[in-house]
């Protein structure tokens, strides 16, 4: 509250302090955020993001059997490994020219829907919401907590909590009611996942060409009965999140500036339509637009394209602050796509990974993450697209395209309408997500529970269709194929936290080149050759500080809320590696108690 006054009453002489958080907690993987904060004007003036892990997937996959790619790339990520397997299978299916049977697509969609519901629930309620829970707000903005105690929760009739503070209390880690319930829900939804994909994190029943999941009625009944057990929780989660985020705008005027950046969103689409998809590159625009989450690039609120071919050709992997040798002088693997369009040397199909370990230097090279960008043919810019943590870009892109029109989910142009059936306690409910005014921290977080509802609603449709096929005796789930001597393929999908692509080049029936580009390299990328910062850096840099603590007991909650709103997940920065650290002038590492109960 006080911060807004400071910002509007003219600038004071800067009081700069270097602050870093390394490692960041409550995320998957190794992420460090290094900032300069101006405490006089209460804003972040500089931000660099870096990670400390190099494993080298694109290095050790070379020469392997391409059919192993899905099994191997699953291990890139310990929370969305299945999204990698699925995406790898999409890319392989293009390369092998095989189209899985329809029922296999439904089973994959059901598995992926369960994954979205599970992962977003665990992340939002058990990891992100800790930043908004009673204990944290008390330690960072006691004034806000006092106000939350006096503020009635407008949607209390749905979620059952009387005041905003009661909701915050329910999110206290390990003890709060919602925190504990979310863990339970994350288990039920993972069981749904296992019914379709065998094991969670690294699935066992997904193959290029289809699935091995036995299509029996009980598999679908077991899934449906679990889905219905969590449907009311989903409705409550949307209401609770809306209440808390609306309250933050109200209690801290100006909070929309936290984590705000230019609207530059990318979504690669999810949930194939089994009636349309054939995995051919030539028809990729058609089947891409038939997906039940529409791919798209949204710039300044406008849809630039929803053609997967355009999206593919615009991909550029830039260097600039990363520890690699340029591959510009190597021979390209792919000069033209299957439609005859030229393919850039900086495209993932042509990337070669040549690591050059070196010291971390924030003025020079400081990250093993490269900088994926999208080349806008209209403006000539290399856009540092972000994924909005996944759901924000998915909902935005789908809403603007207006193509999804199903019994439970409808894109309206200005938003998305989602209908969930009657549950044990709550009636049939229609939720409406509307395109927000900003691409910022609170809207990234708000989109998440809505996308849980979206995935649950789509799951109902996939279940009905799959059951119908099964009951009519159509039970084929796998199609055989041959691995060709030479071929290329690309897969586009949405990992939970956003865009995921796999690019594959086969020579002599072996992997000649393989490059997975998951969401976190997009979001966590460092400054590129043009000096454009990556999305975490851009969102944090310049953001105001609302925390009431001064430099000595500063926790950095506003910064952490911003970073976590993107759903960071560093294991997928497959090329990451951190060089030797540079000594910062004033290193101040914020503390928050010393007890980790």
């Amino acid at each position, binding site marked *: 509250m006080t911060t807004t006054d400071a910002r509007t009453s003219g600038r004071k002489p800067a009081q700069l302090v270097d602050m870093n958080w390394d490692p960041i907690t409550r995320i998957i993987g190794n992420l460090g955020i290094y900032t300069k904060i101006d405490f006089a004007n209460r804003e972040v003036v500089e931000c660099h993001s870096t990670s400390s892990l190099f494993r080298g997937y694109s290095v050790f996959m070379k020469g392997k059997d391409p059919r192993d790619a899905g099994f*191997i790339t699953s291990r890139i990520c310990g929370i969305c490994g299945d999204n990698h397997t699925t995406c790898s299978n999409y890319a392989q299916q293009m390369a092998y020219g095989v189209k899985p049977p329809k029922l296999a697509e439904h089973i994959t969609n059901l598995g992926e829907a369960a994954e979205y519901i599970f992962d977003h629930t665990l992340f939002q309620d058990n990891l992100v919401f800790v930043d908004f829970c009673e204990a944290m707000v008390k330690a960072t903005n006691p004034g806000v907590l006092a106000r939350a105690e006096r503020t009635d929760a407008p949607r209390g009739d749905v979620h059952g909590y009387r005041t905003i503070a009661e909701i915050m209390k329910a999110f206290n880690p390990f003890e709060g009611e919602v925190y504990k319930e979310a863990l339970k829900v994350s288990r039920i939804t993972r069981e749904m996942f296992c019914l379709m994909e065998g094991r969670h994190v690294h699935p066992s029943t997904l193959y290029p060409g289809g699935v091995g999941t036995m299509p029996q009625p009980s598999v679908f009944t077991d899934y449906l009965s679990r889905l219905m057990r969590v449907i009311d929780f989903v409705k409550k989660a949307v209401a609770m999140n809306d209440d808390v985020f609306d309250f933050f705008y109200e209690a801290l005027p100006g909070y929309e500036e936290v984590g705000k950046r230019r609207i530059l969103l990318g979504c690669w689409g999810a949930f194939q339509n089994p009636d349309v998809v054939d995995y051919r590159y030539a028809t990729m625009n058609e089947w891409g637009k038939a997906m039940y989450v529409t791919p798209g690039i949204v710039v300044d609120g406008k849809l630039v394209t929803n053609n997967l071919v355009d999206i593919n050709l615009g991909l550029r992997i830039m260097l600039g602050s990363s520890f690699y040798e340029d591959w510009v002088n190597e021979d390209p693997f792919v000069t033209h796509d299957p439609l005859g369009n030229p393919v850039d040397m900086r495209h993932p199909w042509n990337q070669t990974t040549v690591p050059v370990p070196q010291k971390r230097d924030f003025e020079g090279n400081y990250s093993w993450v490269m900088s994926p960008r999208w080349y806008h043919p209209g403006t000539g810019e290399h856009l540092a697209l972000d994924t909005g943590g996944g759901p924000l870009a998915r909902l935005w892109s789908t809403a603007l395209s207006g193509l999804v029109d199903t019994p439970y989910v409808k894109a309206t142009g200005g938003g998305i309408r989602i209908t969930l059936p009657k549950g044990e306690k709550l009636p049939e409910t229609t939720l409406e997500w509307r395109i927000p005014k900003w691409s910022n921290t609170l809207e990234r977080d708000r989109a998440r529970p809505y996308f849980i509802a979206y995935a649950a609603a789509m799951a109902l449709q996939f279940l009905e269709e799959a059951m119908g096929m099964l009951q009519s005796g159509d039970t084929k789930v796998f199609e055989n194929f041959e691995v060709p001597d030479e071929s290329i393929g690309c897969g586009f999908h949405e990992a939970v936290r956003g865009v995921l692509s796999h690019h594959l080049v086969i020579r002599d029936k072996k992997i000649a080149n393989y490059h997975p580009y998951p969401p976190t390299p997009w979001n966590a990328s460092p400054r590129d050759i043009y000096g454009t910062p990556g999305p975490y850096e851009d969102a944090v840099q310049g953001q105001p500080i609302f925390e009431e603590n001064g430099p000595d007991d500063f926790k950095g909650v506003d910064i952490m809320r911003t970073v976590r709103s993107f759903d960071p997940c560093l294991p997928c920065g497959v090329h990451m590696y951190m060089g030797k650290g540079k000594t910062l002038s004033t290193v101040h590492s914020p503390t928050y108690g010393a007890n980790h109960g």
Partner: protein
Amino acid sequence: MTTQSGTTETRADAPRGFDEITILWISEGMSCDGDTVSLTAAGQPSIEDVVLGLIPGLPRVNLVNKVLSPSLGGEDFLAPYRKAARGELEPFILVIEGSVPNQNIIEGDGYWTSFGNDPATGEPQTLNWWIDQLAPKAWAVVAAGTCATFGGIHAMAGNPTGCMGLADYLGWEFKARSGLPVVNVPGCPIQPENFMETLVWVLQHAAGTAPPPPLDHMLRPQWLFGKTVHEGCDRAAYYEQADFAKDYNSPKCQVKVGCWGPVVNCNVPKRGWMSGIGGCPNVGGICIGCTMPSFPDAFMPFMDEPPGGTLSSMVIKPYGAVIRRLRGLTNDMVNHEPRWRHNKQKLTSGYDPHWRA
């Protein structure tokens, strides 16, 4: 009186364990953090049950894990690790997730993976540094997942980091303060309940309420990894009857389409993935040997028939075919009801009214 004093004496002599213990979990090995995520899937028992003290016979547990930590990160999160490295936090169990890179192959500046920065210099502190500091002071050391136990996927042929399992790094003869060697819980990722069960046993041992957990020669809990996948597989009867799936559309034995179950130590088909649901060959996934020390190289390409499979499935063919045919006949027979079940005038069931009186 003697009985009484005897009892008292036994109690006094019983090994007294710890009332409270800290778990320092480091997932900064070369991993995907999937073992931490898997752990949150366990319901028998769940991690919150353990942390909230709902399991009898355990010490009070302070869990420090980056993914689940309520702290904001950085030094605040690292505080207990630093304390332990200074020797001021006792007792603690060190859990390592991910494979351990070979730092010695790096020339000049550089780290394969680090965990926080050195407070004095601001330089990254390597995973290896932390292991060197913490392992000798730990009461027990647990390796979570195949990466930490045996190197796993990131240690596959052609990898640039030279990474390995924790026992390769510390030496297989390493003993923690408790006298326990590294406790290996393989699985890519860990089967949630396998891990929690092992952890609970180690904690019971820490509390003095249980003996050390029985481990095999690869330091795996014997009761979890003592049998093969095949021995617990739903499809094993198909194998015995030499009835093999030709592709993944089939509920039959998958040995010809890539399953390594006959020779892999893992209980997943029997136990399911979580709460008895899911798994591998039992639900349509080939076993790729993800719990094994030789994973993944020995099992690739995954979708081809294992080399030994051709011979063993050929040998079993004639036997299986006969057995299948005979069982088919019997199955046919037992699929008919006995003749005495009818609604005619006469009772033909063999009932003798004599015995009624």
